[in-house]
């Protein structure tokens, strides 16, 4: 960033850059530009996104619109001033009240609060308590807020080192007396992070709430503010001292749902109500007015409890998403490249094709831990039902019941940080830490209403989506 901000022709390359130099103007120049058709454009030269072509100069006109002018059509230009934009969320000191709980917001990136990056044209997060207070003043009525920006990455760039840093910071904040912790996170891999933190942070005395938004906060319709209000309320006052995801329940601005970190998945690429608890029901409904618990089966808030932080890991693990016709050498390649654990997302009750068996056998003989989950997401791996499943069991593929594939991957990486002993690995994998395997699937734990059916449409049309 610092490099690009110092470049007076930020984002311009090739012909456009040469032309700007020739014309003697720079980014943020306030200009009167005339093109070859004689049209006059008055405005400020904007930086250009680096991914765009090198043929156009971008102007912000006085009426707020942007346009691109082809370099070959610039007839003349006159610089009449210089107007660098300072894009800043109005910052006000976050008020402190002794009667309110203390919440720490750990930032990883994502779009909870954001501003525009001229270099890429993308939104980048902005984050200090003062900025957040400027954007969502309601927060000050809920808690005293501390923020810590740990990293500024998109969620797809989160990984094991980041998980460790997060867990260690959670430990520190709990030690420093936080009444609850919120983690601002991009939504794409939010489920992975919530799952792995469920294993790395155990017996927390306070809620650990992961939150993000599906519409960036630079949009008036963003879900960011309401998600943040719900998450911070949960951290400050909620009773669930687990790692949980707090995101919109319906797509309407109504309430958030608290999902258990090990059982939650992003199910739509862009909907606000994208997060669903799979194979169970969510923990709680949170709204502006308070909480409405859906279950009592969770770890309750208890300030006296000592948190256990356990951050070891081995990242030589993968998910093998099975498809018909998969060639066995794929498995061999994984072994050859040194992978120590393979989570299969199998078909149906947990199956792969017969040609894969010898390869899996070779892998297991080589000491690779192979476990089975289902790509249907809902339901259990029940490999004793069909012969194919029984054969896989014989080879040594271990079923993980109804553990979600992503949760299984995170857990396997974490477990392999502790031991490489197969028996021990399998025992740890099959012993749930926090509901990643459940004994019972309630019938309302699987609900995908099929649109178009009269009864569904009647329900949908009489409720806010």
């Amino acid at each position, binding site marked *: 960033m610092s490099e690009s901000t110092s470049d007076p022709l930020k984002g311009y390359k090739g012909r456009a850059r040469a032309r700007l130099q020739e014309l003697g103007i720079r980014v943020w120049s306030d200009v009167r530009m005339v093109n070859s058709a004689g049209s006059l454009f008055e405005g400020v030269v904007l930086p250009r996104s680096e991914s765009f072509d090198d043929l156009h100069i971008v102007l912000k006109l006085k009426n*707020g619109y942007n346009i691109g002018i082809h370099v070959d059509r610039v007839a003349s230009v006159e610089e009449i001033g210089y107007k660098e934009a300072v894009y800043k969320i109005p910052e006000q000191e976050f008020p402190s009240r002794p009667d309110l709980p203390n919440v720490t917001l750990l930032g990883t990136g994502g779009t909870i609060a954001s501003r525009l990056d001229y270099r890429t044209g993308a939104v980048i997060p902005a984050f200090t308590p003062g900025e957040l207070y400027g954007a969502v003043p309601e927060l000050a009525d809920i808690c005293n807020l501390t923020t810590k920006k740990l990293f500024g990455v998109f969620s797809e760039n989160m990984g094991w080192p980041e998980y460790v840093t997060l867990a260690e910071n959670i430990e520190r904040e709990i030690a420093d007396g936080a009444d609850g912790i919120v983690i601002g996170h991009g939504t794409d891999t939010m489920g992975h992070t919530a799952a792995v933190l469920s294993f790395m942070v155990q017996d927390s005395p306070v809620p650990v709430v992961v939150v993000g938004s599906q519409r960036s906060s630079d949009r008036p319709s963003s879900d960011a503010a309401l998600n943040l209000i719900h998450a911070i309320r949960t951290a400050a006052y909620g009773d669930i001292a687990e790692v949980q995801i707090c995101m919109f329940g319906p797509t309407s601005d109504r309430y958030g749902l608290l999902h258990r970190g090990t059982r939650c998945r992003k199910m739509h690429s862009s909907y606000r109500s994208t997060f669903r608890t799979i194979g169970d029901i969510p923990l709680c409904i949170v709204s502006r007015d308070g909480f409405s618990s859906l279950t009592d089966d969770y770890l309750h808030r208890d300030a006296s409890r000592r948190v256990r932080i356990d951050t070891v890991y081995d990242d030589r693990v993968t998910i093998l998403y099975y498809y018909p016709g998969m060639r066995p050498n794929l498995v061999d390649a994984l072994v050859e490249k040194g992978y120590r654990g393979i989570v299969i997302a199998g078909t149906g009750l947990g199956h792969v094709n017969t040609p894969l068996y010898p390869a899996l056998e070779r892998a297991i003989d080589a000491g690779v831990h192979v476990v089975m989950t289902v790509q249907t997401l809902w339901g259990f791996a029940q490999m004793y039902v069909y012969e194919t499943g029984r054969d896989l069991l014989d080879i040594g593929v271990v079923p993980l019941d109804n553990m979600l594939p992503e949760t299984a991957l995170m857990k396997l990486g974490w477990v392999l940080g502790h031991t490489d002993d197969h028996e021990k690995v399998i025992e740890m994998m099959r012993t749930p830490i926090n509901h990643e395997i459940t004994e019972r699937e309630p019938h309302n734990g699987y609900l995908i209403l099929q649109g178009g059916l009269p009864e569904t449409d009647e329900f949908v049309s009489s409720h806010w989506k």
Partner: protein
Amino acid sequence: MPDAIDYSEVGLRVGLEVHQQLLTAKKMFCNCPAGIYTREHDGSVLRHMRPTLSELGEYDGTALMEFKTRKNIVYLLHTSNVCTYEMDDTPPFLMNPQALDIAIEQCLMLGCDIIDEVHIARKQYLDGSIPTGFQRTAIVGVEGRLPFHGREITITQVSVEEDSCREVSDRGHLIVWRTDRLGMPLIETVTGPDLRTPDEVEEAILLVGRVCRSTGHVRVGLGASRQDINVSVRGGRRVEIKGVPRAGWAPGLVHCEAVRQINLLNLRDELRGRGFRESDDLGIEHRDVTELVADSPMDLLRAGSWERYLDNGDQRSDLERGSGPFCVRAVRLPGLGDTLSWPTQPNRSFADELRGRVRVIAGLDQPPALLHSEDWPREASATNELDRLRRTLGCSSEDGLVVVWGAEEDTLTAAEEIRLRFLDAVDGVPNETRQPFADGSTDFERILPGPDRMYPDTDSPPQRVTRERVEGLQASLPELPWSREARYTEVGVPTPVIHYLIRRGGARLVDAVVELSGADLRRACFFFGERLKGLRRAGVAVDEISDERWCELFAVFDSRPVAWEAWQSLVERLVDHPDIDLQNLVEEMGLGRAPDGWRERVAGLAAELRPVHPDGSEDQRRRFLMGRAMSELRGRVSSTEVDAEIRSRIGAEHE
């Protein structure tokens, strides 16, 4: 119209923003079908809006105003015309290239220079009219011009944008929108402030409409084109009259706005004369008087009556109610007596300016929104109430008093808005968007947005428009309406017929028929511009006949001139039997060929229809005979010939 004024003396300047939907198969940023409207819904969403910073780091004034209103926004959805894009649950797809092509074509018609790289911007609207909170819009052309009364109207810019939702209802804190129209592509044509009289404004709207419509690539019909009119007088400011549904409203609206601005400028002078210059000079204060009026004989001021709507008696729903308990608030206006009844528009006073703000921004929409000391209800009990309030607030005889009522928080917002409106009054005419009424009056809609509400759309890449694309579109442009008008005028077609043909797309057909069948231009103009109107009005689906069929029909008229007189039955047959073979039909009807013995048949009719009364008018009889004969002979023998035959038969009787 009252208040005759010399528009040039007051420095009237008017510009237009004409919105015109484009005729595309799909919407602008998703693949939903365009132009499917529904009255029902099968889903709904509840949302709220929050202002965001502009690209340059400022909050937009309108956005902040709209945030203050804290609206609950409900969107009604129907699976036939919206997808998850319109719900703001899916990012935009790439811009519909057909929409951009039509927009470029429109720009070329308007004589614009086409932008090389079109950048999509987000224009914030927090009223909920668009679920994202912004409209996606992009400038496509600039610096166009239109010939107008020997001078030119400048076209400042033309942008292509997505249409917004249709409002279903707006009550208290709940506004409901239907999403069917959302996302339809349209262009907004912005003219310079070049119009000088109210009548010119109407003409200019119609002119822009003719230019747009002469391509045949825009939508016509209810709501397909709407215009905003920007009005100012010297010393005043630009006020936008939004969504004027028809050109005919324009003269009245423009006149009334000119009058309003002049009156507001006079009020400004009056206020300055009283020593008001800036914010600190306004000692406006307010007080919660709920307790004081708890036993008021004035029904309006009681919680019970506020909780019900006046029009239908329904209870206010939770979503419509604001926050806080019912509250009555009195606002003292020190030294501002006699300003509330200051005239603004015909039948409206400055208190209505306050009402607009209170209604829209504070959401206190129970009529009459506020009561004030210069138009207090006349009953004795009410007068006593006013005296009590004045005493409580410590009003002197020079002070004004306003009372508002509703949810507590809203009454606070209202008091602040009243203060802000007076502050604007000290300054003159505030930039506003106003909604139009048929009588020429307007009411406050929102603060006029500025450039701070614009933000680049990070979801959509800019679209390059190559010179080749522009030249390709240029090559296939239809004739410009004024050159067509000159050509038609030359052969003697009256202007209203020409304008009708251009507006309704008939001109294109006229030219096609003339070119392909060699038809007479004047005859074709009257045919498509006048004769078909009657059939269309009678519900005959004449617009379903294809261009080719019309050309065939005119070829028949060319080869068998007498058949022309049977045009109506031919057109009706064509509508009823779209696949019929026209040549066979003409043969079957015997068109263009006089039946054998037709003269004897006429003679027979004449003999049959002898006058009942010998003194009955001869003309009457002749017309009657003509009607009978023509019903059999139309299209086969020319009416002139039949008439001559009848005359000669009647003549023979007298001999």
